[in-house]
C-alpha cells in the first residue's frame, strides 16, 4: 500500500513504514478531556462502541434520560468496536478516561486488572438478582466492576419454509443437525452456516459445541473437544456447510441466511430486527443442538457491560454510578431488551420479558445457562481464544485432524 513518496524522503520512509505499528502501540494520541475537576458536577462523559447511527441515537437518549435522574448532562461518544480497547488503554495512560465506559464483557477483567476501573460496591449500586454469568464476567478479584443492562447469546435460526419443504424437523442433536443440513442442501443453497473465521467471533460460535459436550478451554486436547470439532468438519466435508465459513463474519452468515442461501445458521438476536424487515422470510429460532439428548446446552454469554473508570474526581464517579444504576434498573433493562432483542440481565425481569416477547424464549433459556468467556481463564482468555479459532481453521481446511489441531492449540495456549 504505497502512498506518494518524495524521493528525498526515502531514507526516512524505511523507518516510517516499519514503525507504523509501534506508533500505535506507544500510544501517541490525545484522549478526550473529562471536564472541570472542581465545583459541582453538571456533565459527564460516556464512551461506547454503538457507532451505528440509530443505535447511537437510542443510547444517547437513554443516557440523557438516566443522566437527568442524576442531575447531569451526558456527552456521549462512540468509537468503532475494534478501537475501543486501544483507546481506553491510551486514555488510561493519559488519565483522561471517560466517566462512564462501556466494555464488551470479555474485556472487563483485562481493563479492571489495569486498575483503571473502580469497584461498584462503594457506590451502593444494586448488584442483586443478576444472571450469575454476567456478574462473573464483570467481576475481577471478587469485586464487581461492571454491570450489563442486557445480555445475549447465540442460537440456531432456521428458515421455516425450507424445513417444511424438505420435511425436516428442527434438529435437537448433532446427528439430527447433520441429517437435516444434508437434506436441506440444494444446488445454490447450503443446509447450515456458521462463522468460523480467524477472529474471536469464530471462537465464540464454536464455544456452544465445545462447552455443551463437556469440553473446556483450560484443556483443549480432550476427546469431547475433538468430537465437537469433528461435527463442524463433517458438516463442511459432506457439503452441507460451505467452506467459505472460514471467511464469513456473523454478518456474512446473516446475509447468506436472508438471501436464502442457507437454511439454518448460528447467530445472535441482534439480527432479528433486520430479519423482520425482510419480506417473505419466515424464520424460527431454537436452542443450539447438543451431541446427545439430555446434555445441557452451554452457550457463551454476550453483552456489553457499563463501568465507572477512575476519573478525575470522586463526585463525578458518584454521579456516574447513579447513571449506571439507572441504566441497569428493571425499567430500562426491559426497554433495552425490547429494542435490541436481547435478554434482560436480571432473572426476574427476564422471565417477565418472556411473557411479553415469546419469540425470545430460546434466547432467555440459553442465557440462563450461558457461560462468560473469561469465567475460567480470566485475563488469559485471549490466548486460548486464539488457539481455538486456529484449531477450528486448521481442522476445517484439512490441514490437521481435529485431535492434532486441538493438541497444537493446547500447546500454544499453555506454552511460552
Amino acid at each position: 500500500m504505497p502512498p506518494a513518496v518524495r524521493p528525498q524522503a526515502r531514507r526516512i520512509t524505511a523507518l516510517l513504514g516499519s514503525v507504523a505499528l509501534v506508533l500505535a502501540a506507544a500510544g501517541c494520541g490525545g484522549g478526550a478531556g473529562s471536564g472541570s475537576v472542581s465545583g459541582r458536577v453538571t456533565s459527564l462523559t460516556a464512551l461506547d462502541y454503538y457507532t451505528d447511527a440509530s443505535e447511537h441515537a437510542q443510547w444517547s437518549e437513554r443516557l440523557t434520560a438516566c443522566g437527568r435522574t442524576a442531575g447531569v448532562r451526558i456527552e456521549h461518544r462512540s468509537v468503532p468496536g475494534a478501537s475501543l480497547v486501544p483507546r481506553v488503554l491510551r486514555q488510561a495512560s493519559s488519565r483522561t478516561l471517560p466517566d462512564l465506559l462501556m466494555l464488551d464483557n470479555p474485556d472487563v477483567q483485562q481493563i479492571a486488572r489495569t486498575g483503571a476501573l473502580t469497584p461498584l460496591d462503594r457506590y451502593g449500586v444494586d448488584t442483586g438478582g443478576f444472571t450469575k454469568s454476567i456478574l462473573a464476567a464483570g467481576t475481577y478479584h471478587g469485586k464487581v466492576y461492571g454491570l450489563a443492562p442486557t445480555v445475549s447469546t447465540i442460537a440456531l435460526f432456521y428458515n421455516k419454509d425450507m424445513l417444511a419443504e424438505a420435511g425436516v424437523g428442527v434438529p435437537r442433536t448433532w446427528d439430527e443437525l447433520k441429517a437435516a443440513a444434508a437434506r436441506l442442501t440444494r444446488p445454490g443453497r447450503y443446509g447450515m452456516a456458521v462463522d468460523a473465521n480467524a477472529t474471536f467471533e469464530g471462537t465464540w460460535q464454536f464455544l456452544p459445541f465445545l462447552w455443551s459436550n463437556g469440553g473446556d478451554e483450560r484443556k483443549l486436547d480432550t476427546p469431547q473437544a475433538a468430537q465437537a470439532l469433528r461435527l463442524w468438519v463433517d458438516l463442511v466435508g459432506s457439503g452441507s456447510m460451505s467452506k467459505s465459513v472460514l471467511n464469513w463474519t456473523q454478518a456474512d452468515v446473516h446475509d447468506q441466511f436472508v438471501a436464502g442461501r442457507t437454511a439454518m445458521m448460528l447467530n445472535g438476536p441482534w439480527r432479528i430486527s433486520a430479519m423482520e424487515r425482510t419480506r417473505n422470510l419466515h424464520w424460527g429460532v431454537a436452542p443450539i443442538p447438543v451431541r446427545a439428548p439430555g446434555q445441557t446446552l452451554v452457550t457463551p454469554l454476550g453483552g456489553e457491560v457499563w463501568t465507572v473508570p477512575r476519573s478525575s474526581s470522586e463526585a463525578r464517579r458518584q454521579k456516574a454510578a447513579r447513571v449506571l444504576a439507572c441504566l441497569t434498573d428493571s425499567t430500562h433493562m426491559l426497554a433495552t431488551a425490547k429494542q435490541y432483542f436481547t435478554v434482560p440481565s436480571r432473572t426476574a425481569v427476564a422471565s417477565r420479558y418472556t411473557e411479553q416477547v415469546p419469540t425470545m424464549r430460546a434466547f432467555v433459556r440459553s442465557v440462563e445457562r450461558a457461560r462468560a468467556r473469561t469465567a475460567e481463564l480470566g485475563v488469559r482468555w485471549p490466548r486460548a481464544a486464539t488457539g481455538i479459532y486456529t484449531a477450528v481453521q486448521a481442522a476445517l481446511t484439512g490441514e490437521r485432524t481435529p485431535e492434532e489441531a486441538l493438541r497444537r492449540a493446547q500447546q500454544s495456549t499453555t506454552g511460552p
Partner: protein
Amino acid sequence: MRNEGRWEPVARWLFVTPAVGYLLLFFGLPVAENVVMSLRDYTATTFYTGDAPFVGPRNYFETLSSDQFPQALLTTVVFIVGSLAGQFTLGLALALFFARAFPLGGVLRSLLLLPWLLPMVVSATTWRWMLDTDTGVVNHALRALHLVPSGVPWLTDTSGALTSVILVNIWVGIPFNTVILHGGLRDIPTQLYEAAELDGAGPLTTFRHITWPLLRPVAGVVLLLGAIYTVRVLDIILVMTGGGPADATQTLATRAYDLSFQQFEFGRGAALGNVLVLVSLVFAVVHLRAGRRALHG
C-alpha cells in the same frame, strides 16, 4: 563579509534543526520507545500503572522460538517477493504502454490510479466478497466461461489464500509502480530512441540497451520502497483473511498486531515489531548502498 562568514555555520544548523527535531520526535522517539517496550513485560496494566518489569531479551527469545515464527517469516518472504514481482512487472508493462502518446492515454492513466484512491479497508472488503467461493463474482465469471467446473477456493484454502492476498496486493501496488516508472521513462531523452531507430534497433533491443539501463536507478527505488511497504502490509490481510485460514496468511506484521492488540502482550508484540524494523532496515541499507554505487560508479 567577514561577519556573514562567521554566522554561516550557525545559519546552516538553524536550517537543519527543524528537520532533525521532527525526525527525532516522530521517528526516533517511537523507535526508542519500542525497543524499551520490547525489553519489558509490558501488558495492558502498564498503561495505567506504568509498571513494566525489565525482562531483558526474554520477549525476543519467546517470540522467535515460537512455533508460529518460522512459518510467519516464510509467509512474509513469499508475500514480499510475490507482490514485488507482480507489481513491478505489470507496473513496468503499463508504464511502457502509457509512454507513447495516444488518444485518451491521459484519462486511462488517471483511471489506473483508482485502486490507490480507495481506502484500503473498502477495497479489501470488496475483494473478500468478490473472491467468495460460492457467491463471489470472480468464481461466477470463471464458471460462466466454463474455465472451472466448481468454485475456486480463493480465500478458504491454505495454499490459495496466500496467492489471493498477494494478487490483491499486486493490484493495489500497480499504480505506484506505474506512476514512478512512467516518470522515469519520461526522463529518458528522446534523441536516444531516435538514434536507435536510425541504427535499425528493434523494440526489444531498444528496451535492453536504452530503456532498461537508464531506468535502473528508478526501478531500484520502486522495488525497495515496494519491499518496505509490503513488509508492513496489515489491513489487506486482516480484512481479507484475518491471517487465516489456519495461519496461512499470517505475516510478521499481522502477528505483531495480534500479539499487541488481541492478546495484549505488548512486550512481545514490540519485539516482533522490532524484527520488522530490522528487516526494513536491511532493505534500506541495500537501497542506500545501491544509490552510492550509482553515484560513484
